[in-house]
């Protein structure tokens, strides 16, 4: 059996462990599940990864994240072992060069990391994608998103006041994870659009500078809804960046009350982009700001949310690309 590398600490009881982890700055302020060797090994067993396998790194911070690091933090976050392959995919996505961990976790603006899960694993793990899916109450959403954030803190060293320089930060930095509602969607799922087979599961990480709802309960057709989305988007704008090139993304999370107009008209995601892109990217003016999205495909469209509010949520980007990684499941 390959040995683990992390230092071990002995505590007289659970309360002592919790206090010690808080004092050492190893938590997000909430209690954690004790990362014992047995727990961590059971997580690694669900991926087939060795403790030393490297998932990625942050060169500017001189850190690498191993499977063992990720497993320890996923245990602490309250994940089940079967969630761990999703956490691994999320870490790999976030630590891609243009996932830009250094900037998105250090920024004064307090960007969050949104994790979108696609494919069969959503239902196997009971990842919420409908009513309330951005919020609390769903173990998989809460703990998988939290695991990524604990890794960002403990491994990538984004600690408030140290390498995390956020002026206000955001509650979305505790956890921000949901699934695409593929079953109730009229469209091709996000991961299939990004080149993965439908039967594959994926994790997409998108750095979010600002999230805002385009609420529109009056429009009764796709064009009206999209005009509301454009109007809301152009109140904020999105700056381009030389290093990221033309690939900057915006994510639109379309709720069921808006989705039905697209379903009724048979409008595809591609047709939506063709309508949205020139309007989002046209020159700034009259108090509006353009979004510097290099091409229509940079608008990522996701189905999620529950009935009631006629909303589409706009997840405006920080300085990173939305990166999608396959969830590797050994033996499948």
């Amino acid at each position: 059996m390959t040995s683990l590398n992390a230092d071990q600490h002995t505590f007289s009881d659970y309360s002592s462990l919790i206090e010690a982890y808080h004092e050492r700055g190893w938590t997000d302020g909430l209690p954690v599940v004790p990362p014992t060797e047995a727990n961590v090994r059971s997580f690694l067993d669900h991926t087939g990864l060795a403790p030393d396998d490297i998932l990625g790194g942050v060169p500017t911070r001189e850190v690498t994240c191993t499977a063992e690091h990720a497993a320890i933090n996923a245990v602490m976050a309250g994940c089940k072992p079967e969630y761990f392959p999703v956490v691994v995919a999320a870490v790999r996505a976030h630590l891609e060069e243009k996932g830009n961990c250094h900037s998105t976790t250090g920024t004064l603006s307090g960007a969050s990391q949104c994790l979108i899960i696609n494919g069969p694993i959503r239902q196997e793990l009971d990842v919420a994608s409908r009513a309330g899916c951005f919020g609390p109450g769903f173990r998989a959403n809460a703990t998988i998103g939290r695991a990524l954030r604990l890794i960002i803190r403990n491994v990538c060293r984004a600690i408030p006041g140290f390498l995390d320089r956020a002026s206000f930060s955001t509650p979305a930095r505790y956890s921000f994870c949901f699934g695409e509602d593929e079953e109730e969607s009229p469209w091709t799922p996000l991961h299939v659009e990004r080149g993965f087979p439908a039967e594959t599961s994926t994790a997409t990480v998108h750095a979010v500078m600002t999230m805002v709802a385009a609420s529109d309960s009056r429009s009764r057709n796709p064009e009206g809804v999209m005009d509301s989305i454009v109007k809301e988007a152009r109140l904020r704008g999105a700056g381009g960046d030389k290093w990221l090139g033309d690939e900057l993304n915006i994510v639109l999370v379309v709720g069921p009350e808006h989705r039905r107009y697209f379903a009724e008209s048979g409008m595809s995601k591609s047709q939506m982009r063709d309508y949205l892109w020139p309007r989002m990217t046209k020159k700034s003016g009259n108090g509006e700001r353009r979004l510097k999205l290099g091409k229509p495909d940079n608008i990522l469209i996701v189905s999620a949310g529950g009935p009631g509010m006629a909303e589409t949520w706009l997840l405006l980007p920080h300085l990173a690309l939305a990166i999608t990684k396959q969830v590797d499941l050994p033996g499948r």
Partner: protein
Amino acid sequence: MAHNEIVALDPTSGPLDRKDPRAFPERPETLNGAVVGLVANGLGEGQKMMDALYDELNKEAEILGSVRVLKSSVSVPPDKQDWERLLSEVTVAITGMGG
């Protein structure tokens, strides 16, 4: 092991002490004779602000000169060659940050 005792693992990639183990150099008492590095991150009017700051400092001290760096992108740290210029040519450096 006692009944309730728990052995748990360190979740970090190394010490999270807020003090960087690399010592900071002492700040000079004066900028007289100094070469000042000005690192602008490319956001907004950052370069103009750096220029204005330099002009103000120049009124207070006899500064020898400046090395001006504009990051190639707001997303990333300065390029390697810019770090090398700063490390080899300047006495002190001022950085602008923003998000």
